[in-house]
């Protein structure tokens, strides 16, 4: 099995370790899990699932949080 995987994070290509979890990715990116939402291949994850969900080659990950906004 390949050691590295290629994933998309917020639209950008990124190398990851095979078997890494969403929680690992967030840790690598220095993002605190509090107040972020994570979507993997359009599926929104419960915060409790971050440590369980492992990523595989080709996964598309979106990490979102709140920013300033009124209406648009």
């Amino acid at each position: 099995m390949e050691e590295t995987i290629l994933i998309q994070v917020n639209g950008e290509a990124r190398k990851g370790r095979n078997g890494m979890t969403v929680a690992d990715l967030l840790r690598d990116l220095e993002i605190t899990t509090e107040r972020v939402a994570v979507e993997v291949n359009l599926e929104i994850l419960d915060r409790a699932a971050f440590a369980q969900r492992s990523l595989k080659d080709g996964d598309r990950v979106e990490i979102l949080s709140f920013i300033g906004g009124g209406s648009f």
Partner: protein
Amino acid sequence: MGDDRLIIAGREFKSRLWVGTGKYKDFVETQKAIEMSGADVVTVAVRRVNITDRSKENLLDYIDPKKYTILPNTAGCYTVEDAVRYSRLARAAGVSDLVKLEVLGDEKTLFPDTAGLIEAAKILIKEGFIVLPYTNDDPIVAKKLVDIGCPAVMPLAAPIGSGLGIRNPYNLKILMESVDVPVIVDAGVGTASDAALAMEYGADAVLMNTAIAGAKDPIAMAEAMKYAVWAGRLAYKAGRIPRKLYATASSPIEGML
């Protein structure tokens, strides 16, 4: 205004002025303006985290979610699918089921796509969301939104960010009389008198962003808006005098020489 609380879906709000958090110079200015406004509900947008520059600070480091009700919006969504997706993401990132639902119809006007709005609201209400819909000043659409389970409606006064004030006061008044849920006038306010007028017409609250953030002195304007909303609310409750074409003397005739 101590006991004059606004209640939506069982939640109690102290302030009848709600504010957005966009367009400020920086987070310090955002924080100061919101504090000055006295608002206890603030809207936020949901966007991608900047993963390349982690030094960027987070809005919620400045706006304490314990002190304010954070109301995520679906700003920028033009389809039912996007609005539903962003609502779900907001719920996953946040702490509540509240969402200010926007389904926009057109980039130039940012007017709501009311057919899409009703469709998205139905889906989200079924999923347990408390949907506060950003809608047109259309009483019939407002009624439909209430019928499907929206605990409040948020009609526009004028296009978002336009500062034009209340463009159709009569529709807005009819809308307020048509629904038995709180009406929050959202978008289009330009200055304090616009906010006061909305409250005098009977709005339960006013939500604004650009009118404060875009003012020359946002913090001073936040203060002006706080008093405008108070004044308008008090005047509404006090009951204004009827308009008459001719004069009526305020001093008695009796006792004159």
